[in-house]
């Protein structure tokens, strides 16, 4: 005989404002099998949880329904509470009357009736729940970190320092990411490379870190604790073991005029190249698209000059497979490019550049050695107009979000310009100034007050060229919408931060969710900011949403702590909500007919064949067998099974049928 306890939560007023919780509790107390039904203001609080525990002990309950928020929120909380009172945690279910009822409907009888129906459904389900024991799987204590920017570097070092193995995968020839391109960092104006490059070297030297550059993720399978990651090592046309990084090949390479990606096209590089002088590893790769040998079949100058004979023209992509317990996504962001802004002449006029290109101009290691010179003629600009929110917060361009970093780096750019060109005048067109970090507001005030940066609140409608000047036409909304026209020598657009190219493909390979802008989604915006919805895969940095460096580093260390936490156990506890083949007594042993339809539909290759033998070892029949370590509990095989021989624990046939009946019968 079922003895179910029903606990209705008011959630402060979140539920009780639209649902008559007392009535729900009263009606639920009359459901068949319900022994106790109460309502309380905050069920998840300590006294609330104690109510559940005491009721379990007092009434010897066989099942609990907590009717409150989404199970995605508090199911673990209440399952733990049940376990503490000695009730198997899988005999506890949550009826979601907040997200799916009180918050989406107005106060009415229909809303209360819906809540009652939801509770009834879960009561019928929980009556059919079985006591289950968690599954334990061993954990491979290696983390694969994808992306070698500051997030990946920080996380790799943190995990490696905790004593675990790390495999860091970077698709460019060097780690460093966007941070290595930056000139100076806000709000302290310390040099970006001075902070970052020692960390890059630490990564290369760390005994626990294996670094694969110029490499990409080919495929991932497995699950938390035991992923199998296949990594494609793109051919560098180089034997890395022999190469000493002397750079003779780079000096002699005859192809010298390729726009450098690292310099944002403002500088040039050779066909065999390292992206920048402080690259880690500091060994070159051959860009096969531009190399004369790969185009015309002859040249091989690099091979001739190489003192260690390390060049390998016939090298092909190779693959390594890594067993890992956790994955960390740190693939970063990119800035909006192309001719997205025809009205600003971006891509049309050489002197209209983006923020990242300005970073290179201002960087001491950049193409101008840190002098601010315009790309078209190398002159020092007398007036620069910075346009904030170029693309960001602009629904017309499809980007509603705030890129978050532009207000600050634009203020920084204007300051750097003023520091280097004292007689110059920087103008900033802005919508709002969002300076919310520590010392950020003070930094912007400094730009305005000490460095006399001219902030103009308003949007720019057009940038066009006239007599060698860029005419910027905008509006000053603080002067009653008065039109403003500035003859500038250079225009810098703070273009929107966007997801790194390839994010979508990567997300699909890893089965992590992403938002409509292709940024990876966190498991919970507040409580699980560094986890994805896929167990064992974590997030750090700007691949989640554009972030500045302090936030990125904090997220990376957070994710690293999560991974170190996971690795602190030898065994991983997993929910046992998996599929099972039903067994029965001889002579049939199972209703499974051996059609094996379930095998090809299983996404995890978790199903194989099992032979049932009699005492003398003769095979009686062959049936399906599900490997509990591999099964993830999707239940696709259950729906495919024609003889209803497979069922899934936690969502079994009886449970879901009872739910359908309970939902509809009293409606």
């Amino acid at each position, binding site marked *: 005989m079922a003895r179910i306890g029903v606990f209705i939560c008011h959630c402060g007023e979140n539920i009780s404002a639209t649902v008559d919780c007392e009535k729900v509790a009263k009606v639920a107390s009359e459901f068949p099998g319900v022994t106790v039904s109460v309502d309380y203001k905050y069920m998840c609080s300590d006294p609330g949880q104690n109510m559940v525990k005491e009721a379990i002990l007092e009434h010897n309950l066989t099942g609990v329904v907590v009717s409150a928020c989404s199970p995605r929120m508090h199911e673990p909380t209440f399952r733990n509470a049940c376990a503490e009172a000695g009730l198997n945690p899988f005999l506890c279910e949550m009826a979601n009357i907040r997200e799916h009822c009180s918050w989406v409907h107005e106060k009415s009888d229909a809303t209360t009736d819906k809540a009652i129906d939801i509770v009834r459904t879960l009561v019928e389900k929980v*009556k059919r729940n079985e006591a289950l024991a968690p599954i334990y799987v061993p954990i491979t204590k290696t983390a694969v970190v994808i992306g070698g920017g500051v997030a990946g570097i920080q996380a790799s070092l943190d995990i490696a320092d905790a004593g675990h193995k790390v495999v860091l995968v970077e698709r460019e020839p060097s780690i460093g990411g966007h941070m290595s391109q930056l000139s100076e960092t806000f709000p302290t104006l310390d040099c970006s490379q001075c902070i970052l490059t020692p960390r890059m070297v630490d990564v290369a030297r760390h005994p626990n870190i294996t670094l694969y550059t110029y490499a990409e993720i080919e495929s991932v399978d497995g699950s938390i604790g035991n992923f199998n990651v296949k990594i494609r090592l793109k051919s560098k046309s180089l034997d890395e073991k022999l190469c000493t990084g002397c750079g003779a090949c780079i000096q002699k390479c005859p192809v010298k005029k390729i726009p450098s990606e690292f310099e944002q096209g403002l500088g040039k590089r050779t066909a065999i190249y390292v992206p920048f002088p402080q690259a880690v590893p500091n060994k070159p790769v051959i860009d096969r698209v531009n190399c004369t040998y790969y185009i015309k079949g002859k040249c091989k100058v690099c091979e001739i000059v190489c003192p260690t004979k390390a060049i390998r023209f016939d090298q092909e992509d190779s693959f390594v497979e890594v067993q890992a317990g956790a994955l960390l996504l740190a693939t970063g962001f990119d800035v909006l490019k192309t001719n997205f802004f025809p009205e600003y002449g971006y891509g049309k006029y050489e002197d209209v550049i983006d923020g990242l290109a300005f970073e290179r101009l201002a960087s001491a290691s950049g193409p101008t050695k840190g002098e601010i010179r315009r790309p078209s003629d190398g002159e020092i600009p007398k007036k620069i107009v910075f346009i904030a929110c170029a693309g960001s917060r602009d629904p017309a361009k499809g980007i509603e979000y705030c890129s978050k970093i532009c207000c600050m780096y634009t203020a920084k750019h204007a300051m750097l310009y003023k520091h280097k060109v004292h007689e110059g005048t920087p103008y900033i067109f802005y919508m709002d100034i969002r300076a919310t970090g520590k010392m950020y507001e003070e930094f912007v005030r400094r730009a305005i007050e000490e460095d006399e940066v001219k902030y103009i609140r308003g949007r720019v409608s057009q940038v066009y060229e006239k007599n060698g000047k860029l005419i910027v036409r905008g509006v000053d909304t603080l002067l009653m919408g008065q039109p403003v026209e500035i003859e500038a020598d250079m225009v810098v657009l703070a273009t929107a931060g966007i997801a790194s190219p390839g994010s979508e493909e990567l997300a699909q390979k890893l089965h992590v969710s992403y938002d409509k802008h292709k940024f990876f989604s966190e498991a919970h915006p507040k409580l699980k900011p560094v986890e994805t919805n896929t167990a064992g895969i974590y997030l750090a940095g700007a691949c989640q949403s554009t972030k500045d460096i302090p936030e990125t580093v904090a997220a990376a260390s957070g994710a690293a702590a999560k991974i170190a936490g996971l690795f602190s156990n030898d065994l991983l506890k997993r929910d046992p909500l998996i599929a099972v083949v039903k067994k029965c007594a001889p002579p049939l042993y199972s209703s499974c007919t051996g059609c094996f339809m379930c095998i090809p539909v299983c996404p995890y290759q978790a199903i194989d064949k099992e032979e049932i033998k009699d005492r003398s070892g003769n095979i009686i029949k062959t049936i399906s067998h599900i490997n509990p370590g591999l099964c993830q509990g999707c239940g696709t095989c259950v729906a495919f099974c024609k003889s209803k021989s497979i069922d899934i624990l*936690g969502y079994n046939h009886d449970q*879901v049928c*009872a739910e359908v009946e309970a939902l509809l019968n009293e409606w």
Partner: protein
Amino acid sequence: METNNTNNFEPKVVAFVCNWCTYAGADLTGTSRIKYATNVKIIRFPCTGRIDFMLLMKAFANGADGIIISGCHPNDCHYTSGNFHARRRWMIFRNLLDFIGMDVNRIVFSWVSAAEGAKWAEVVNESVDQFRQLGPATSYQKLIKNSEFQEVE
């Protein structure tokens, strides 16, 4: 499409949704406080691939006037391919429904991701309107006797 002009008719709608996308999407509808019709009640499944389509017949037998099935978008399935199996099964099942004389408009098949709280409200409201137009679904109910599953004591 059958039409029925009973204006006061409120259809009973069961939503079969997957845990990872649409259930979470419906949670987001709640968190965003977007309102929708009370007619829809949700049953959670691990994946749309788990949904045995006999359950849809069971829902009709028990008095549902309309059904929504919703899961992750193609390529976004938490389990890689469950939603593709569900879609393929649906393509076949809807022919069968049509053949036995059920109005296929009584089932709405959609994709709602965990980020699409507003879309879930749209799907619900549009479906409820559609089912309201169709009127009560009684033809299949009359054929079936209830309670093949006994009460658990």
